[in-house]
Protein backbone atom coordinates (compact mmCIF):
# COMPACT_ATOMS: atom_id res chain seq x y z
CA UNK A 1 0.00 0.00 0.00
CA UNK A 2 1.41 3.33 -1.04
CA UNK A 3 1.94 5.87 1.66
CA UNK A 4 0.10 8.86 0.23
CA UNK A 5 2.13 11.38 2.22
CA UNK A 6 5.27 10.27 0.37
CA UNK A 7 3.78 10.90 -3.06
CA UNK A 8 4.51 13.91 -5.17
CA UNK A 9 2.39 15.52 -7.86
CA UNK A 10 2.78 12.81 -10.50
CA UNK A 11 2.21 10.04 -7.95
CA UNK A 12 -0.97 11.62 -6.62
CA UNK A 13 -2.18 12.30 -10.15
CA UNK A 14 -1.80 8.69 -11.20
CA UNK A 15 -3.36 7.44 -7.95
CA UNK A 16 -6.42 9.60 -8.50
CA UNK A 17 -6.55 8.66 -12.20
CA UNK A 18 -6.32 4.97 -11.40
CA UNK A 19 -8.90 5.13 -8.64
CA UNK A 20 -6.44 4.02 -5.92
CA UNK A 21 -7.63 6.89 -3.77
CA UNK A 22 -9.70 10.04 -4.08
CA UNK A 23 -8.46 13.60 -4.10
CA UNK A 24 -10.42 14.22 -0.90
CA UNK A 25 -8.52 11.40 0.84
CA UNK A 26 -5.27 12.98 -0.28
CA UNK A 27 -6.29 16.44 0.92
CA UNK A 28 -7.42 15.05 4.28
CA UNK A 29 -4.05 13.41 4.85
CA UNK A 30 -2.10 16.56 4.09
CA UNK A 31 -4.47 18.79 6.07
CA UNK A 32 -3.82 16.51 9.03
CA UNK A 33 -0.06 16.66 8.43
CA UNK A 34 -0.18 20.44 8.33
CA UNK A 35 -1.96 20.67 11.65
CA UNK A 36 0.48 18.19 13.21
CA UNK A 37 3.54 20.14 12.09
CA UNK A 38 3.06 23.37 14.02
CA UNK A 39 6.44 23.05 15.73
CA UNK A 40 8.16 23.72 12.39
CA UNK A 41 6.41 27.11 12.18
CA UNK A 42 6.17 26.69 8.42
CA UNK A 43 2.63 28.00 7.95
CA UNK A 44 1.50 31.54 8.69
CA UNK A 45 -2.11 30.77 7.77
CA UNK A 46 -3.75 27.37 7.32
CA UNK A 47 -6.50 27.03 4.72
CA UNK A 48 -7.76 23.44 5.02
CA UNK A 49 -11.14 24.31 3.50
CA UNK A 50 -9.48 25.52 0.33
CA UNK A 51 -7.55 22.27 -0.08
CA UNK A 52 -10.60 20.15 0.67
CA UNK A 53 -12.94 21.97 -1.67
CA UNK A 54 -10.45 21.82 -4.55
CA UNK A 55 -10.13 18.08 -3.89
CA UNK A 56 -13.88 17.66 -3.88
CA UNK A 57 -14.10 19.53 -7.18
CA UNK A 58 -11.45 17.23 -8.65
CA UNK A 59 -13.30 14.09 -7.52
CA UNK A 60 -16.57 15.41 -8.93
CA UNK A 61 -14.96 16.33 -12.24
CA UNK A 62 -13.47 12.85 -12.45
CA UNK A 63 -16.83 11.22 -11.66
CA UNK A 64 -18.38 13.19 -14.51
CA UNK A 65 -15.63 12.04 -16.85
CA UNK A 66 -14.26 15.54 -17.35
CA UNK A 67 -10.63 16.19 -18.25
CA UNK A 68 -8.77 17.06 -15.08
CA UNK A 69 -6.44 20.04 -14.76
CA UNK A 70 -2.68 19.52 -14.51
CA UNK A 71 -2.79 20.02 -10.75
CA UNK A 72 -6.22 18.54 -10.07
CA UNK A 73 -6.58 17.51 -6.46
CA UNK A 74 -3.00 18.43 -5.53
CA UNK A 75 -2.93 20.29 -2.21
CA UNK A 76 -0.02 22.71 -2.27
CA UNK A 77 1.63 25.16 0.08
CA UNK A 78 1.66 28.79 -1.08
CA UNK A 79 4.56 31.06 -0.25
CA UNK A 80 3.17 34.10 1.53
CA UNK A 81 4.59 36.40 -1.15
CA UNK A 82 1.63 35.55 -3.40
CA UNK A 83 -1.49 37.61 -2.78
CA UNK A 84 -4.43 35.29 -2.24
CA UNK A 85 -7.92 36.72 -2.35
CA UNK A 86 -9.57 36.71 1.04
CA UNK A 87 -6.62 34.99 2.73
CA UNK A 88 -4.29 37.17 4.83
CA UNK A 89 -0.95 37.80 3.13
CA UNK A 90 1.98 39.48 4.87
CA UNK A 91 5.22 38.47 3.10
CA UNK A 92 6.18 37.59 6.71
CA UNK A 93 6.43 41.28 7.56
CA UNK A 94 4.82 43.11 10.45
CA UNK A 95 4.04 46.01 8.17
CA UNK A 96 1.44 43.92 6.32
CA UNK A 97 -0.14 42.46 9.43
CA UNK A 98 -3.89 42.34 8.91
CA UNK A 99 -3.67 42.75 5.13
CA UNK A 100 -6.20 40.64 3.24
CA UNK A 101 -5.81 40.89 -0.54
CA UNK A 102 -8.93 41.69 -2.52
CA UNK A 103 -7.48 39.97 -5.58
CA UNK A 104 -5.65 36.81 -6.56
CA UNK A 105 -2.08 36.78 -7.89
CA UNK A 106 -1.78 35.45 -11.43
CA UNK A 107 0.45 32.53 -10.37
CA UNK A 108 -1.90 31.33 -7.63
CA UNK A 109 -4.91 31.90 -9.90
CA UNK A 110 -3.25 29.80 -12.62
CA UNK A 111 -2.58 26.99 -10.15
CA UNK A 112 -6.16 27.05 -8.87
CA UNK A 113 -7.49 27.11 -12.42
CA UNK A 114 -5.48 23.94 -12.99
CA UNK A 115 -7.19 22.30 -10.05
CA UNK A 116 -4.69 22.80 -7.22
CA UNK A 117 -5.91 23.31 -3.68
CA UNK A 118 -4.14 25.38 -1.05
CA UNK A 119 -3.14 24.03 2.37
CA UNK A 120 -2.04 27.42 3.63
CA UNK A 121 0.33 30.35 3.36
CA UNK A 122 3.97 29.61 4.01
CA UNK A 123 6.39 31.43 6.25
CA UNK A 124 9.43 32.94 4.55
CA UNK A 125 12.14 35.54 5.00
CA UNK A 126 10.52 38.93 5.40
CA UNK A 127 9.81 40.34 1.91
CA UNK A 128 11.97 37.43 0.62
CA UNK A 129 15.08 39.13 2.00
CA UNK A 130 17.21 36.45 3.57
CA UNK A 131 18.83 33.08 3.05
CA UNK A 132 17.85 31.26 6.24
CA UNK A 133 14.24 32.19 7.01
CA UNK A 134 15.45 34.07 10.09
CA UNK A 135 14.13 37.47 9.00
CA UNK A 136 10.44 36.53 9.23
CA UNK A 137 8.46 38.72 11.63
CA UNK A 138 6.63 35.57 12.72
CA UNK A 139 9.56 33.44 13.84
CA UNK A 140 12.03 31.10 12.18
CA UNK A 141 10.97 28.13 10.15
CA UNK A 142 12.70 25.05 11.49
CA UNK A 143 14.07 22.58 8.98
CA UNK A 144 12.72 19.03 9.29
CA UNK A 145 16.34 17.89 8.88
CA UNK A 146 18.74 17.28 11.72
CA UNK A 147 22.42 16.49 11.76
CA UNK A 148 23.32 12.86 12.28
CA UNK A 149 25.28 13.65 15.45
CA UNK A 150 22.33 12.72 17.64
CA UNK A 151 21.93 16.36 18.69
CA UNK A 152 18.83 18.39 18.15
CA UNK A 153 20.25 21.65 16.84
CA UNK A 154 17.56 23.47 14.87
CA UNK A 155 18.72 23.96 11.31
CA UNK A 156 17.83 26.64 8.79
CA UNK A 157 15.63 25.42 5.94
CA UNK A 158 17.32 28.01 3.73
CA UNK A 159 15.65 31.07 2.39
CA UNK A 160 13.83 32.97 1.42
CA UNK A 161 11.38 30.17 0.50
CA UNK A 162 12.08 28.42 3.81
CA UNK A 163 8.51 27.42 4.63
CA UNK A 164 8.12 25.94 1.14
CA UNK A 165 11.32 23.93 1.56
CA UNK A 166 10.35 22.69 5.02
CA UNK A 167 6.88 21.44 4.07
CA UNK A 168 7.90 19.66 0.89
CA UNK A 169 10.87 17.90 2.51
CA UNK A 170 8.79 17.04 5.59
CA UNK A 171 6.06 15.50 3.38
CA UNK A 172 3.62 18.04 4.82
CA UNK A 173 2.70 19.22 1.31
CA UNK A 174 3.48 17.37 -1.92
CA UNK A 175 4.65 20.62 -3.54
CA UNK A 176 4.84 24.34 -2.87
CA UNK A 177 5.32 27.59 -4.68
CA UNK A 178 8.54 29.51 -4.25
CA UNK A 179 10.01 32.73 -5.55
CA UNK A 180 13.61 33.33 -6.48
CA UNK A 181 15.30 36.74 -6.60
CA UNK A 182 18.91 35.68 -6.02
CA UNK A 183 18.54 31.99 -5.16
CA UNK A 184 15.48 31.82 -2.92
CA UNK A 185 14.08 28.69 -4.58
CA UNK A 186 17.33 26.87 -5.32
CA UNK A 187 19.28 27.36 -2.08
CA UNK A 188 16.44 26.20 0.24
CA UNK A 189 15.70 23.29 -2.12
CA UNK A 190 19.35 22.25 -1.81
CA UNK A 191 19.31 22.64 1.99
CA UNK A 192 16.38 20.23 2.42
CA UNK A 193 16.94 17.73 -0.37
CA UNK A 194 14.13 18.65 -2.74
CA UNK A 195 13.97 19.93 -6.32
CA UNK A 196 13.47 23.63 -7.04
CA UNK A 197 13.15 25.33 -10.40
CA UNK A 198 13.54 29.00 -11.29
CA UNK A 199 12.30 29.61 -14.84
CA UNK A 200 13.48 32.26 -17.27
CA UNK A 201 12.67 35.76 -16.04
CA UNK A 202 9.22 36.61 -17.40
CA UNK A 203 7.85 33.05 -17.66
CA UNK A 204 5.71 33.46 -14.55
CA UNK A 205 3.74 36.63 -14.09
CA UNK A 206 4.77 38.88 -11.24
CA UNK A 207 1.26 40.33 -10.97
CA UNK A 208 -0.02 40.00 -7.42
CA UNK A 209 3.34 38.74 -6.15
CA UNK A 210 4.60 41.13 -3.50
CA UNK A 211 7.57 42.86 -5.09
CA UNK A 212 11.13 42.70 -3.74
CA UNK A 213 13.42 43.40 -6.73
CA UNK A 214 11.27 43.53 -9.83
CA UNK A 215 13.98 42.93 -12.42
CA UNK A 216 14.95 39.68 -10.65
CA UNK A 217 11.84 38.24 -8.97
CA UNK A 218 10.60 34.99 -10.55
CA UNK A 219 8.17 32.42 -9.21
CA UNK A 220 8.79 28.71 -9.57
CA UNK A 221 7.91 25.29 -8.21
CA UNK A 222 9.46 23.43 -5.27
CA UNK A 223 8.65 19.74 -5.36
CA UNK A 224 9.89 16.18 -4.93
CA UNK A 225 11.50 15.76 -8.31
CA UNK A 226 12.06 17.06 -11.80
CA UNK A 227 8.83 15.71 -13.26
CA UNK A 228 6.76 17.32 -10.51
CA UNK A 229 8.52 20.64 -11.10
CA UNK A 230 7.77 20.39 -14.84
CA UNK A 231 4.07 19.70 -14.22
CA UNK A 232 3.72 22.48 -11.71
CA UNK A 233 5.63 25.07 -13.74
CA UNK A 234 3.35 24.37 -16.71
CA UNK A 235 0.44 25.24 -14.44
CA UNK A 236 2.08 28.40 -13.05
CA UNK A 237 3.61 29.96 -16.15
CA UNK A 238 2.10 31.85 -19.05
CA UNK A 239 1.76 35.26 -20.63
CA UNK A 240 -0.02 37.84 -18.53
CA UNK A 241 -0.87 41.25 -19.96
CA UNK A 242 -0.97 42.61 -16.40
CA UNK A 243 2.81 42.20 -16.03
CA UNK A 244 4.79 44.43 -18.40
CA UNK A 245 7.79 42.05 -18.33
CA UNK A 246 5.74 38.89 -18.86
CA UNK A 247 7.02 36.93 -21.85
CA UNK A 248 4.49 36.49 -24.63
CA UNK A 249 5.38 32.92 -25.53
CA UNK A 250 3.33 29.76 -25.28
CA UNK A 251 4.08 27.47 -22.33
CA UNK A 252 5.80 24.33 -23.68
CA UNK A 253 4.72 20.86 -22.63
CA UNK A 254 7.85 20.31 -20.57
CA UNK A 255 6.68 17.16 -18.87
CA UNK A 256 5.84 15.41 -22.11
CA UNK A 257 9.25 16.19 -23.58
CA UNK A 258 11.23 15.05 -20.54
CA UNK A 259 14.21 12.92 -21.54
CA UNK A 260 17.32 12.09 -19.56
CA UNK A 261 19.26 11.26 -22.70
CA UNK A 262 21.80 14.07 -22.98
CA UNK A 263 23.53 12.83 -26.14
CA UNK A 264 24.72 15.80 -28.17
CA UNK A 265 24.47 18.18 -25.23
CA UNK A 266 27.52 20.06 -24.05
CA UNK A 267 27.72 20.83 -20.36
CA UNK A 268 30.03 23.64 -19.27
CA UNK A 269 31.90 23.64 -15.98
CA UNK A 270 32.64 27.24 -15.01
CA UNK A 271 36.06 27.42 -13.36
CA UNK A 272 35.18 30.56 -11.40
CA UNK A 273 32.67 28.56 -9.33
CA UNK A 274 35.56 26.80 -7.60
CA UNK A 275 35.54 29.17 -4.64
CA UNK A 276 37.80 29.31 -1.61
CA UNK A 277 36.74 27.47 1.52
CA UNK A 278 34.25 25.28 -0.28
CA UNK A 279 33.83 22.03 1.66
CA UNK A 280 35.59 19.17 -0.12
CA UNK A 281 32.36 17.17 -0.01
CA UNK A 282 30.70 19.73 -2.25
CA UNK A 283 33.61 19.69 -4.65
CA UNK A 284 33.47 15.89 -4.72
CA UNK A 285 29.74 15.96 -5.40
CA UNK A 286 30.34 18.36 -8.26
CA UNK A 287 32.88 15.93 -9.74
CA UNK A 288 30.36 13.16 -9.31
CA UNK A 289 27.79 15.31 -11.12
CA UNK A 290 30.21 15.71 -14.02
CA UNK A 291 30.51 11.92 -14.23
CA UNK A 292 26.72 11.57 -14.15
CA UNK A 293 26.39 14.06 -17.00
CA UNK A 294 28.94 12.10 -19.05
CA UNK A 295 27.12 8.89 -18.27
CA UNK A 296 23.92 10.48 -19.61
CA UNK A 297 25.69 11.14 -22.90
CA UNK A 298 26.74 14.77 -22.44
CA UNK A 299 30.14 16.17 -23.38
CA UNK A 300 31.89 18.17 -20.67
CA UNK A 301 33.66 21.41 -21.54
CA UNK A 302 35.54 23.85 -19.33
CA UNK A 303 34.22 27.35 -19.57
CA UNK A 304 35.00 30.68 -17.99
CA UNK A 305 32.56 33.24 -16.61
CA UNK A 306 35.17 35.87 -15.75
CA UNK A 307 32.89 38.35 -13.95
CA UNK A 308 31.42 35.81 -11.54
CA UNK A 309 33.08 37.32 -8.47
CA UNK A 310 31.34 40.63 -9.13
CA UNK A 311 27.87 39.12 -9.30
CA UNK A 312 27.19 39.23 -5.55
CA UNK A 313 28.30 42.83 -4.99
CA UNK A 314 26.32 43.92 -8.09
CA UNK A 315 23.29 42.04 -6.78
CA UNK A 316 23.59 43.69 -3.37
CA UNK A 317 23.35 47.09 -5.05
CA UNK A 318 20.65 46.30 -7.61
CA UNK A 319 18.30 44.28 -5.38
CA UNK A 320 18.31 46.79 -2.46
CA UNK A 321 17.93 49.69 -4.93
CA UNK A 322 14.82 48.11 -6.42
CA UNK A 323 13.59 47.12 -2.97
CA UNK A 324 13.93 50.65 -1.60
CA UNK A 325 11.72 51.84 -4.42
CA UNK A 326 9.22 48.96 -4.26
CA UNK A 327 8.83 49.14 -0.49
CA UNK A 328 8.13 52.87 -0.55
CA UNK A 329 4.47 51.87 -0.90
CA UNK A 330 4.27 50.80 2.75
CA UNK A 331 3.31 54.13 4.18
CA UNK A 332 0.56 53.34 6.67
CA UNK A 333 -2.03 54.97 4.43
CA UNK A 334 -3.42 52.37 2.06
CA UNK A 335 -2.93 49.00 3.72
CA UNK A 336 -1.18 47.24 6.54
CA UNK A 337 0.07 48.68 9.77
CA UNK A 338 -0.16 52.35 10.75
CA UNK A 339 1.76 53.78 13.65
CA UNK A 340 0.56 57.27 14.52
CA UNK A 341 2.30 58.70 17.57
CA UNK A 342 0.33 61.36 19.49
CA UNK A 343 0.28 64.62 17.63
CA UNK A 344 2.34 63.26 14.74
CA UNK A 345 2.05 64.69 11.23
CA UNK A 346 2.08 62.77 7.97
CA UNK A 347 5.88 62.53 7.63
CA UNK A 348 6.25 61.35 11.24
CA UNK A 349 3.53 58.78 10.64
CA UNK A 350 5.41 57.37 7.63
CA UNK A 351 8.66 57.13 9.60
CA UNK A 352 7.03 55.66 12.72
CA UNK A 353 5.00 53.15 10.69
CA UNK A 354 8.03 51.93 8.76
CA UNK A 355 10.16 51.87 11.91
CA UNK A 356 7.64 49.62 13.63
CA UNK A 357 6.69 47.51 10.63
CA UNK A 358 9.94 46.55 8.93
CA UNK A 359 12.47 44.08 10.33
CA UNK A 360 16.18 44.86 10.61
CA UNK A 361 17.27 43.18 7.37
CA UNK A 362 14.52 44.96 5.44
CA UNK A 363 15.55 48.31 6.94
CA UNK A 364 19.18 47.59 6.13
CA UNK A 365 18.37 46.87 2.49
CA UNK A 366 16.05 49.85 2.10
CA UNK A 367 18.77 52.10 3.49
CA UNK A 368 21.50 50.63 1.27
CA UNK A 369 19.16 51.00 -1.71
CA UNK A 370 18.27 54.55 -0.80
CA UNK A 371 21.95 55.42 -0.45
CA UNK A 372 23.07 53.94 -3.77
CA UNK A 373 20.24 55.72 -5.57
CA UNK A 374 20.78 59.06 -3.86
CA UNK A 375 22.12 62.15 -5.58
CA UNK A 376 25.88 62.01 -6.04
CA UNK A 377 26.13 58.22 -5.61
CA UNK A 378 23.79 56.93 -8.30
CA UNK A 379 26.40 56.57 -11.05
CA UNK A 380 29.18 55.29 -8.83
CA UNK A 381 27.04 52.53 -7.38
CA UNK A 382 23.83 51.84 -9.26
CA UNK A 383 24.87 52.56 -12.86
CA UNK A 384 28.18 50.76 -12.32
CA UNK A 385 26.30 47.72 -10.94
CA UNK A 386 23.97 47.66 -13.95
CA UNK A 387 27.00 47.80 -16.27
CA UNK A 388 28.59 44.91 -14.43
CA UNK A 389 25.28 43.11 -14.78
CA UNK A 390 25.58 43.52 -18.56
CA UNK A 391 29.07 41.97 -18.42
CA UNK A 392 27.80 39.05 -16.32
CA UNK A 393 25.04 38.44 -18.83
CA UNK A 394 27.58 38.60 -21.67
CA UNK A 395 29.74 36.03 -19.86
CA UNK A 396 26.85 33.59 -20.13
CA UNK A 397 26.21 34.52 -23.78
CA UNK A 398 29.84 33.74 -24.58
CA UNK A 399 29.68 30.46 -22.67
CA UNK A 400 26.69 29.43 -24.80
CA UNK A 401 29.03 29.44 -27.81
CA UNK A 402 30.76 26.48 -26.18
CA UNK A 403 28.00 24.68 -24.31
CA UNK A 404 24.23 24.27 -23.83
CA UNK A 405 24.09 24.01 -20.04
CA UNK A 406 26.18 24.72 -16.97
CA UNK A 407 26.66 22.47 -13.98
CA UNK A 408 27.62 23.90 -10.58
CA UNK A 409 26.93 23.26 -6.91
CA UNK A 410 23.78 25.05 -5.69
CA UNK A 411 25.18 26.45 -2.46
CA UNK A 412 28.66 26.68 -0.92
CA UNK A 413 27.62 24.76 2.21
CA UNK A 414 24.99 22.43 3.59
CA UNK A 415 22.29 23.82 5.90
CA UNK A 416 23.65 25.68 8.92
CA UNK A 417 22.17 26.02 12.37
CA UNK A 418 19.65 28.76 13.09
CA UNK A 419 21.49 31.72 14.58
CA UNK A 420 24.92 30.63 13.32
CA UNK A 421 25.14 33.35 10.70
CA UNK A 422 22.43 35.74 11.82
CA UNK A 423 24.85 38.34 13.22
CA UNK A 424 26.86 38.78 10.06
CA UNK A 425 24.82 40.06 7.09
CA UNK A 426 27.75 39.73 4.72
CA UNK A 427 28.44 36.08 5.58
CA UNK A 428 24.75 35.40 4.97
CA UNK A 429 24.87 37.10 1.57
CA UNK A 430 27.70 34.80 0.45
CA UNK A 431 25.29 31.87 0.55
CA UNK A 432 23.95 33.01 -2.80
CA UNK A 433 27.30 33.03 -4.58
CA UNK A 434 26.35 30.28 -7.06
CA UNK A 435 22.72 31.27 -7.62
CA UNK A 436 22.95 35.04 -8.04
CA UNK A 437 24.79 35.21 -11.41
CA UNK A 438 22.05 33.33 -13.29
CA UNK A 439 19.41 35.49 -11.54
CA UNK A 440 21.15 38.63 -12.75
CA UNK A 441 21.08 37.19 -16.28
CA UNK A 442 17.44 36.04 -16.00
CA UNK A 443 18.32 32.44 -16.91
CA UNK A 444 16.43 29.25 -16.03
CA UNK A 445 18.15 27.21 -13.33
CA UNK A 446 17.30 24.37 -11.00
CA UNK A 447 18.62 22.60 -7.95
CA UNK A 448 18.58 18.80 -7.83
CA UNK A 449 19.21 16.90 -4.58
CA UNK A 450 22.35 14.90 -5.22
CA UNK A 451 23.78 13.55 -1.99
CA UNK A 452 24.35 13.89 1.74
CA UNK A 453 27.35 15.38 3.48
CA UNK A 454 29.17 13.88 6.45
CA UNK A 455 26.60 15.39 8.82
CA UNK A 456 23.84 13.58 6.97
CA UNK A 457 22.53 16.81 5.40
CA UNK A 458 21.43 17.19 1.77
CA UNK A 459 23.53 18.85 -0.90
CA UNK A 460 22.29 20.05 -4.27
CA UNK A 461 23.65 20.44 -7.76
CA UNK A 462 22.57 23.33 -9.95
CA UNK A 463 21.88 23.22 -13.67
CA UNK A 464 21.73 26.55 -15.53
CA UNK A 465 20.38 26.85 -19.08
CA UNK A 466 19.90 29.32 -21.88
CA UNK A 467 17.05 31.80 -21.69
CA UNK A 468 13.74 30.06 -22.56
CA UNK A 469 15.40 26.65 -22.73
CA UNK A 470 13.78 25.25 -19.60
CA UNK A 471 13.47 21.91 -21.38
CA UNK A 472 17.22 21.28 -21.48
CA UNK A 473 17.47 22.23 -17.81
CA UNK A 474 14.68 19.84 -16.88
CA UNK A 475 16.26 17.07 -18.94
CA UNK A 476 19.67 17.51 -17.35
CA UNK A 477 18.01 17.65 -13.94
CA UNK A 478 16.26 14.37 -14.69
CA UNK A 479 19.55 12.78 -15.79
CA UNK A 480 21.21 13.82 -12.52
CA UNK A 481 18.22 12.70 -10.48
CA UNK A 482 18.16 9.22 -12.04
CA UNK A 483 21.83 8.74 -11.30
CA UNK A 484 21.91 10.33 -7.85
CA UNK A 485 18.99 8.19 -6.67
CA UNK A 486 18.49 10.59 -3.77
CA UNK A 487 15.90 9.05 -1.46
CA UNK A 488 16.92 10.40 1.94
CA UNK A 489 14.13 11.94 3.99
CA UNK A 490 14.19 13.67 7.35
CA UNK A 491 13.02 11.46 10.17
CA UNK A 492 9.81 12.79 11.64
CA UNK A 493 10.56 14.28 15.08
CA UNK A 494 8.04 17.13 15.06
Amino acid at each position, binding site marked *: MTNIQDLGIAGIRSGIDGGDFTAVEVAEIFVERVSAAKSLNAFLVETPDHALSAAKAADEAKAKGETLGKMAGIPIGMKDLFCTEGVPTTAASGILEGFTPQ*YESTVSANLFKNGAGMLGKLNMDQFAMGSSNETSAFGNVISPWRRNDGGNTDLAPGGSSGGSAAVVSGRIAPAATGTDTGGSIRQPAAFVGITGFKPTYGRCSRWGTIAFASSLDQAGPMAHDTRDCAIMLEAMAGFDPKDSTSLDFPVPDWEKALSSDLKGKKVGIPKEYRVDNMPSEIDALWQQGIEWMKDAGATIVDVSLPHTKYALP*AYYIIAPAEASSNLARYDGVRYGK*RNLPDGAGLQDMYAATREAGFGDEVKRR*IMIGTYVLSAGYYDAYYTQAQKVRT*LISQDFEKAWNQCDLLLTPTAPSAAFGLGEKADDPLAMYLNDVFTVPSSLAGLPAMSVPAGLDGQGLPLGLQVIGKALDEQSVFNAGLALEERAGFEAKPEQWW
Partner: protein
Amino acid sequence: MSVDKETVQKIANLSRIAITDEECEHFVPELNQILGWVEQLGEVDCSNVEPMTAVIPNKLRLRADEVTDGDKRDKVLANAPVAEHGFFAVPKVIE
Protein backbone atom coordinates in the same frame (compact mmCIF):
# COMPACT_ATOMS: atom_id res chain seq x y z
CA MET B 1 33.20 55.86 0.42
CA SER B 2 32.02 55.35 3.94
CA VAL B 3 29.10 56.65 5.92
CA ASP B 4 29.06 58.31 9.32
CA LYS B 5 26.27 58.75 11.85
CA GLU B 6 25.05 61.89 10.21
CA THR B 7 24.84 60.26 6.78
CA VAL B 8 23.01 57.26 8.20
CA GLN B 9 20.47 59.59 9.83
CA LYS B 10 20.06 61.31 6.48
CA ILE B 11 19.56 58.00 4.64
CA ALA B 12 17.06 56.90 7.28
CA ASN B 13 15.21 60.14 6.81
CA LEU B 14 15.16 59.74 3.03
CA SER B 15 13.92 56.17 3.59
CA ARG B 16 11.23 57.45 5.96
CA ILE B 17 12.36 55.09 8.68
CA ALA B 18 12.64 56.52 12.18
CA ILE B 19 15.81 55.29 13.89
CA THR B 20 17.06 55.90 17.40
CA ASP B 21 20.61 57.03 18.14
CA GLU B 22 21.38 53.56 19.34
CA GLU B 23 20.13 51.95 16.12
CA CYS B 24 22.10 54.50 14.16
CA GLU B 25 25.31 53.46 15.97
CA HIS B 26 24.50 49.90 15.00
CA PHE B 27 23.82 50.70 11.33
CA VAL B 28 27.03 52.69 10.73
CA PRO B 29 29.49 49.75 10.82
CA GLU B 30 26.98 47.39 9.17
CA LEU B 31 26.35 49.67 6.22
CA ASN B 32 30.07 50.45 5.95
CA GLN B 33 30.91 46.78 5.83
CA ILE B 34 28.42 46.23 3.00
CA LEU B 35 29.40 49.38 1.12
CA GLY B 36 33.11 48.56 1.48
CA TRP B 37 32.44 45.16 -0.01
CA VAL B 38 30.37 46.36 -2.98
CA GLU B 39 33.03 48.94 -3.80
CA GLN B 40 35.07 46.21 -5.53
CA LEU B 41 32.81 46.82 -8.53
CA GLY B 42 34.92 49.92 -9.13
CA GLU B 43 37.74 47.62 -10.32
CA VAL B 44 35.74 46.48 -13.33
CA ASP B 45 36.46 48.32 -16.54
CA CYS B 46 33.03 49.31 -17.79
CA SER B 47 34.01 51.78 -20.46
CA ASN B 48 31.83 51.17 -23.52
CA VAL B 49 29.45 48.94 -21.52
CA GLU B 50 25.78 49.86 -21.49
CA PRO B 51 23.96 49.45 -18.16
CA MET B 52 21.46 46.60 -18.34
CA THR B 53 17.84 47.56 -18.77
CA ALA B 54 16.18 44.21 -19.52
CA VAL B 55 17.54 40.70 -18.93
CA ILE B 56 15.43 39.17 -21.67
CA PRO B 57 15.01 41.39 -24.73
CA ASN B 58 11.38 42.38 -24.56
CA LYS B 59 9.50 45.16 -26.26
CA LEU B 60 7.36 47.31 -24.02
CA ARG B 61 3.82 46.50 -25.05
CA LEU B 62 1.20 49.15 -25.61
CA ARG B 63 -2.49 48.49 -25.24
CA ALA B 64 -5.53 50.31 -26.48
CA ASP B 65 -6.39 53.32 -24.33
CA GLU B 66 -9.56 51.82 -22.94
CA VAL B 67 -10.96 51.48 -19.46
CA THR B 68 -10.56 47.83 -18.47
CA ASP B 69 -11.00 47.99 -14.74
CA GLY B 70 -12.59 50.13 -12.08
CA ASP B 71 -15.61 50.61 -9.82
CA LYS B 72 -13.75 48.99 -6.96
CA ARG B 73 -13.67 51.76 -4.41
CA ASP B 74 -14.68 49.57 -1.51
CA LYS B 75 -12.13 46.91 -2.41
CA VAL B 76 -9.42 49.52 -2.75
CA LEU B 77 -10.27 50.90 0.68
CA ALA B 78 -10.87 47.53 2.33
CA ASN B 79 -7.39 47.34 3.86
CA ALA B 80 -6.92 51.01 4.71
CA PRO B 81 -5.89 51.58 8.34
CA VAL B 82 -8.34 54.50 8.34
CA ALA B 83 -10.87 55.30 5.61
CA GLU B 84 -13.46 58.06 5.79
CA HIS B 85 -16.18 59.10 3.36
CA GLY B 86 -14.79 56.84 0.65
CA PHE B 87 -11.24 58.18 0.95
CA PHE B 88 -7.99 57.18 2.62
CA ALA B 89 -7.67 59.25 5.76
CA VAL B 90 -4.36 60.70 6.98
CA PRO B 91 -3.39 63.12 9.74
CA LYS B 92 -4.00 66.76 8.97
CA VAL B 93 -1.32 68.08 6.60
CA ILE B 94 -2.41 71.71 6.21
CA GLU B 95 -2.75 73.98 9.22
